[in-house]
């Protein structure tokens, strides 16, 4: 294990130990914060309930749907913006201020559009994530070195070969960043949406536990959610590092 990894683990273990200490010593009341060991045990018991898997299934399928739609549509949107500079110039101010829009205000509109089901939440996750994918796709395509495009012409590659063998691999780090952000934003959009607006899913269960003063259950659900999302991010981070290490940061 590297020194940095050792320090990282030491900080995490130290922080959890500190929380355990202040909870056990009664420095914070049990309603506000549960000791990490109790959170862990509660999380284990939650994992043994059918209710959890029903809510997790709803949340993760909604997130997966929004990621899938955001990645596909965002990629096509980025390609379109690259292909049509006039449209890009027209949309520039909207894209620049996109994340200042309070997305959740569109929820009633999505209910009207899709009905009272999971699709409005999927749409919230989608509109959170899609622009990140589109902007990163556009950045990747804009940064394909001109000399590589000229090399493709010298090699007499067809348009499709140029896209598949030169443009996409060259833009891959940016596409990957777009994918990573889409996953993160989809999780944020869907879970926050469940928290505020929904009657099912992990976000809703966390909010329900909070309102019912079931602190241990709330922290247990939060711990499970953080573990899952953190694991996905760590996996993506590892792949991203492998891509960048080959390219030496180019």
């Amino acid at each position, binding site marked *: 294990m590297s020194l940095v990894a050792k320090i990282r683990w030491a900080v995490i273990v130290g922080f959890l130990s500190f929380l355990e200490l202040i909870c056990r010593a009664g420095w914070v009341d049990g309603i506000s914060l549960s000791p990490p060991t109790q959170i862990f045990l509660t999380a284990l018991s939650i994992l043994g309930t059918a209710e959890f898997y029903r809510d997790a299934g709803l949340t993760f399928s909604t997130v997966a749907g929004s990621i899938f739609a955001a990645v596909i549509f965002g990629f096509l949107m980025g390609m379109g913006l690259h292909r049509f500079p006039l449209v890009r110039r027209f949309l520039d101010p909207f894209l620049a201020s996109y994340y200042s829009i309070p997305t959740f205000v569109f929820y009633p509109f999505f209910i009207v559009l899709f009905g009272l089901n999971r699709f409005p939440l999927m749409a919230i996750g989608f509109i959170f994530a899609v622009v990140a994918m589109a902007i990163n796709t556009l950045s990747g395509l804009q940064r394909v*070195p001109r*000399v590589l495009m*000229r090399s493709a012409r*010298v090699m*007499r590659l067809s348009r499709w070969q140029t896209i598949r*063998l030169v443009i996409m691999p060259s833009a*891959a780090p940016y596409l990957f960043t777009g994918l990573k952000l889409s996953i993160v934003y989809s999780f944020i959009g869907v879970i926050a949406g469940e928290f505020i607006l929904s009657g099912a899913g992990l976000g809703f269960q966390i909010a329900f536990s909070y309102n019912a003063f079931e602190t241990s259950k709330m922290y247990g659900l939060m711990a499970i959610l953080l573990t899952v999302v953190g694991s996905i991010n760590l996996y993506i981070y590892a792949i991203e590092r492998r891509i960048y290490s*080959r*390219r030496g940061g*180019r």
Partner: protein
Amino acid sequence: MSNHVVFEGVTKRFSGRDGRPDIHALGPVSFTLQQGEFFSVVGPSGCGKSTLLDVMAGLSAPSEGVATFEGHPLKGTVPDGVGVVFQEDSSFPWLNVTENVSFHLRQMGLDEIEIRTRVEHAIAFMGLSAFSKAYPAELSGGMRQRVCIARTLVTRPRLILLDEPFGALDQQTRLLMGDELLRLWRETGATILLITHALDEASMLSDRIGVMSVRPGRFIDLVETGWPRNRTSEIVSDRRFGEITGRIWQHLRAESMSAMGTQAA
């Protein structure tokens, strides 16, 4: 020797954008490259050297005049048998050395044994055998440029166009790369056109040197070096090397000062 590339009254104009006037970048230029000749082009910055290379590579169509390669007109499409090495690093950063060098061959649809044979030879020829699995980011600038040359070499082009390929290298490495280039030229028998800013490089490597005027670039002198085919960088100590370089500089000095807006002293 037969005519390999022929330019007859070739000009190139680029239309001005946003109401700006058209740019007359090149010509008219008329000259011939003989089969197996090593021809260098020198000239002041912005005189149209790279434009000339683009037209010859088929990357750009001439605005006027006729350019032919092996008797076929060049009209903005790269013909079979042409290889180009650019000044910038054009290696694919996501592929290792072997994958980079074999890339074009795979697109050409050659069989695996033929690809392996050609790639191993090209990598060994360019002195990259110890780095065959390395990625471009792990190589020096000179080694990356050798990868690009090897990638061009494996396709066995009959016309090799080099656009300041050693521009980013130090003087010693340039001389050594020049030796490698001469070795490559002798072994392949290809016709080579080298665009360069370095007068010594042009004098050392070439059979003939075309000296270009300021934009729109035209040839103001064609210098025959008379070097033997089996020359090396050692000819830099030859008395004639200084004479050739001096003759080119006489032209270029006046042109460069004209380009800078001053009178030659």
